[in-house]
């Protein structure tokens, strides 16, 4: 009995002490590839910060961010949760057929404020054709694959609410209808919150129809699988090692077309719509146009004089490669980082078409559409 106690004590002490020692000895990491975010570094020490409590709060974040082999411990938690039949981890549901889904929260007043911002923008851009595309996320398309009794609000209802609230001249593109009709195709990633290029292609066809242009048939593209090991943001949250990776396909035009891509007014340039280096990183969706930028301008060799301005979140990144074949110039703006008077920019650049592209889950919480009101 005494011996057993000794063993217990030793095992306990080694486990507690060992993990503590490993934590002390491990190098701090600046960035988490798995979570795609910078990690907390050891906070700055000052009397002010200590008395205000900011220091201790930061130390807490620092210790949890820099915990040694963090992903290993969190994946134990995820596996344990599945074993005891929990339906979700960190708000991500484990769906059927390897799908992970994120719950859509009932929209707050922010959604109504965003509708109002668009209405006010429309007042100042009379004569310009404005289109809106609010995309659902995967949870709305595959409710049948959700675990039983999983709770989520209706994205279709939220999209309708915006369409009813916005006053003025705007044409709404019915992406939800088109995507639901194509649900047998791989239109959403299993492990990420974005649509795939297949989903974007379906939305592109719906958009073209609304804009009175003829979409290119899928036969005009060579569809190539460029990644088989994409694990997206849902995976980072759910952290379930048994979920399979996604593939990323790109649609390469079979016809000749060339693009000049300018990022943040000359900060960098690309001659392709794809930033291939991201396939080597965790955040592979940034393959499309290199991820989020303040302002991206695309000039194509399509000399038809048409100019399109897009206010968008990252859903637009997979869609724009299709649209770029129909416009001479595309201006993509991220309102988080660009606070110019956009109605003025539309006038100055003589832009005829404006398109809003957001996923409804992001749109419902976006705090930056307000910049359209100035």
């Amino acid at each position, binding site marked *: 009995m005494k011996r057993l106690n000794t063993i217990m004590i030793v095992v306990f002490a080694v486990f507690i002490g060992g993990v503590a020692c490993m934590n002390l*000895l491990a190098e701090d990491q600046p960035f988490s590839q798995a979570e795609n975010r910078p990690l907390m570094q050891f906070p700055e020490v000052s009397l002010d910060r200590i008395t205000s409590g900011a220091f201790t709060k930061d130390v807490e974040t620092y210790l949890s961010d820099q915990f040694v082999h963090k992903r290993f411990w969190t994946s134990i938690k995820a596996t344990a949760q599945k074993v005891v039949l929990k339906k979700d981890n960190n708000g991500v549901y484990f769906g059927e057929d390897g799908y992970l889904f994120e719950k859509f929260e009932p929209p707050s007043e922010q959604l109504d404020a965003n509708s109002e911002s668009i209405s006010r923008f429309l007042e100042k851009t009379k004569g310009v054709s404005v289109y809106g595309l609010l995309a659902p996320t995967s949870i709305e398309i595959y409710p049948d694959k959700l675990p039983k009794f999983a709770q989520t609000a209706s994205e279709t209802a939220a999209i309708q609410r915006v369409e009813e609230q916005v006053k003025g001249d705007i044409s709404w593109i019915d992406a939800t209808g088109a995507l639901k009709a194509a649900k047998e195709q791989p239109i959403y990633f299993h492990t990420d919150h974005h649509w795939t290029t297949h989903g974007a292609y379906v939305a592109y066809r719906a958009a073209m129809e609304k804009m009175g242009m003829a979409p290119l048939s899928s036969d005009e593209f060579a569809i190539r699988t460029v990644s088989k090991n994409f694990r997206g943001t849902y995976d980072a949250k759910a952290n379930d090692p048994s979920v399979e990776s996604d593939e990323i396909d790109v649609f390469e035009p079979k016809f000749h077309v060339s693009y000049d891509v300018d990022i943040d007014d000359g900060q960098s340039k690309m001659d392709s719509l794809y930033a291939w280096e991201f396939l080597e990183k965790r955040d592979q969706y940034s393959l499309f146009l290199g991820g989020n930028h303040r302002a991206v301008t695309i000039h194509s060799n399509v000399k038809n004089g048409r100019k399109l301005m897009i206010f968008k979140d990252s859903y637009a990144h997979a869609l724009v490669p299709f649209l770029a074949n129909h416009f001479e110039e595309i201006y993509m703006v991220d309102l988080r980082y660009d606070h110019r008077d956009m109605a003025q920019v539309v006038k100055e650049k003589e832009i005829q078409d404006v398109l809003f592209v957001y996923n409804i889950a992001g749109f419902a919480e976006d705090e930056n559409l307000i910049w359209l*009101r100035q």
Partner: protein
Amino acid sequence: MKKLAGIVVLCMAVMMAACGSQSSGEPNKEQASEVKFTDIVSNIKDQVSEDLKAEGVDDTSQTHQEVDLKDTKDENSVANIWIEKMKMNPELFANGTVIAALMNVNADEIIVLEAKDEEQVAELKKSLENELASQVQTWERYLPDQYEKVKNNKIITKGKFLLYVTYTNPEAVEKAFNESF
């Protein structure tokens, strides 16, 4: 080794915080009412344009926007956008100015507020905290150097005045603010 030192500092910090908490609650009564809001703002602006000049920017108006938060006559004015964005009650402050980067990929944001009276300072501080939360959300997935600035944000109150600084060198702005008293 750095970590070990960190842990030691942490232990000391906890003790100091425990001892220090009784004395920190005392308000600074000594600053008199003659401090002018415009002086504070102009001191801060001098600091900002000095810093920008060092970076080679001569005309501050090209890169930074100055907004008078009392300029709310037009419903769609930039002042109204800021007020709504921060979920601020415009009745609570006598004066307010925002100096923010306009279109550079830059998280710089300096906000100075003068409350109508000291009781409103706590409520206004909440609005500034809303703004900080929104800046964190905006920048945490974008440029790491700009996100560093946001993480080093300072919110300072002194009498009726509040200062919010997201800036490359927040201490310099803080100093300009403090020296106005």
